């Protein structure tokens, strides 16, 4: 359930609701961190749930001593009223059998908040790509039927590739085709649920392998930015684009503590 930080419940009517799927390489979550940190979004509440493994830590977006001591939990909601953007960040994995109930509860809350649309940032295993996918861009999008009319023209002008359907049962030759997102976590469940509940949802994902997924996260936010224009567009130089997204202070030591000097 949504629990606001302040006394009043914020009004999210007409907002674009961004959220990550906990997926391969945690790319969606890393991308959300970049968005929240760069736009300096302000925490408006918690999504308190029994579906995610509990975790706590100090403010992951701290920029100074003064703001470093605010406690953060596993599911928090941030907002930027000037751009009518709301963002959910998920910081832990789902408890067994609880991913579907979470999707249902979250989407029900999003629908009752009258958000204009939901954008899910996700990723999928790159080793599952077919030959055609291997030769094309690693980014894909998916739209639910109710959002197709309003967004399709813009998407077509961006020359984006829609996520292809693949055989439901890969081993069988004449199997039916459906959308499969291996390694995408709750992406498919969110998409299916939104289709049936007529929620305006756009899924943006990248084919990735696990490793240092920071470049993948930067790629995904730039892909999102092509459409939403959260930051002003700049030249095609990848280094310049990486510099304009602010990496949060919590990204320190992503691969563990320092090494003992005696090792060398």
């Amino acid at each position, binding site marked *: 359930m949504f629990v606001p930080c302040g006394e009043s419940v914020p009004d999210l009517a007409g907002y674009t609701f961004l959220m990550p799927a906990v997926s391969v390489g945690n790319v969606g979550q890393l991308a959300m961190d970049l968005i929240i940190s760069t736009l300096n979004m302000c925490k408006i509440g*918690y999504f308190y749930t029994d579906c995610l493994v509990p975790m706590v830590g100090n403010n992951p977006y701290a920029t100074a001593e003064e703001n470093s001591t605010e406690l953060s939990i596993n599911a928090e909601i941030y907002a930027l009223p000037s751009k009518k953007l709301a963002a959910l960040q998920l910081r832990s994995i789902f408890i067994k059998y609880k991913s579907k109930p979470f999707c249902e509860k979250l989407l029900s809350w999003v629908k009752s908040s009258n958000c204009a649309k939901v954008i899910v940032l996700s990723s999928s295993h790159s080793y599952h790509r077919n030959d055609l996918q291997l030769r094309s861009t690693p980014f894909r999008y998916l739209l639910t039927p109710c959002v197709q009319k309003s967004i399709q023209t813009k998407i077509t002008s961006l020359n984006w590739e829609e996520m292809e359907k693949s055989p439901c049962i890969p081993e069988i030759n004449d199997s039916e085709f459906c959308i499969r997102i291996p390694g995408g976590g709750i992406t498919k469940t969110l998409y299916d649920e939104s289709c049936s509940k007529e929620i305006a949802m756009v899924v943006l994902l990248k084919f990735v392998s696990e490793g240092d997924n920071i470049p993948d996260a930067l790629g995904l936010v730039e892909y999102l930015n092509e459409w939403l224009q959260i930051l002003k567009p700049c030249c095609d130089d990848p280094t310049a684009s990486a510099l304009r997204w602010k990496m949060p202070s919590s990204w320190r030591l992503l691969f563990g*503590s320092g090494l003992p000097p005696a090792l060398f």
Partner: protein
Amino acid sequence: MAATFFGEVVRAPCRAGTEDEEEEEEEGKRETAEDREVRRQLARKREVRLFRRQTKTSLEVSLLEKYPCSKFIIAIGNNAVAFLSSFVMNSGVWEEVGCANLWNEWCRTTDTTHLSPAEAFCVFYHLKSSPSVVLCQCSCYVAEDQQYQWLEKVFGSCARKNMQVTILTCRHVTDYKTSESTSSLHSPFLKALKTQNFKELPCCSLLEQPNIVHDLPAAVLSYCQVWRIPAVLYLCYTDVMKLDLITVEAFKPVLSSRSLKGLVKNIPQSTEILKKLMTTNEIQSNIYT
């Protein structure tokens, strides 16, 4: 997937934990009525139950609804439990008000009426002279699917604002992320995390990012943060996870905190009690005598 040096391709675990979701989806499609019944029975076995050992009756409401409290102190793990036993529980008379019965792969306590000292347990007490002080000694592991239930059975569904919560626990020093190597750290050392409504100065420095806390301590602190209850977690990073004198003594700065100050009477006596606790355990764990 990952390739090994021996030319085999193995399935590498995904750190986003997504294999489970794919398995669950497949399982969901193939699940029969029998499977659902097995799952229901397992869920029932894993339920957290609170009851009174003296009367062998379950608590019908949450513990803090039955025993309203202004101070809730909880020790999670054997070292934190030993600290509270020696330094806090030896001063004053503490009455047992409840006991949590739970089963999981790590904590298989089924008979909580006759617990031996070596067994894991979760027991609640209040101070007879000041019943609004409630203490919990939790040395059993509460699994991730049981933590929310534990919170509901103890705190209930409505937030209790007029109380302060203090949590004590330990973690292994290798969990602590720092730019130096962990081998150069002088453990044990204490770190704190507090909720927004906790206005006191903690007894040690705060836990720096990117360090985080999981399990029951995180569940309790999250609950307090969301429902705006003043709470502080004191986390002792140690390289000895079994019962250890030095680790337990590392919690001593917490004795000067507002929650514990009034409760601790005789520190030298406490140190003696602690030493006795250590010796009892050492004899039990020595396989050569």
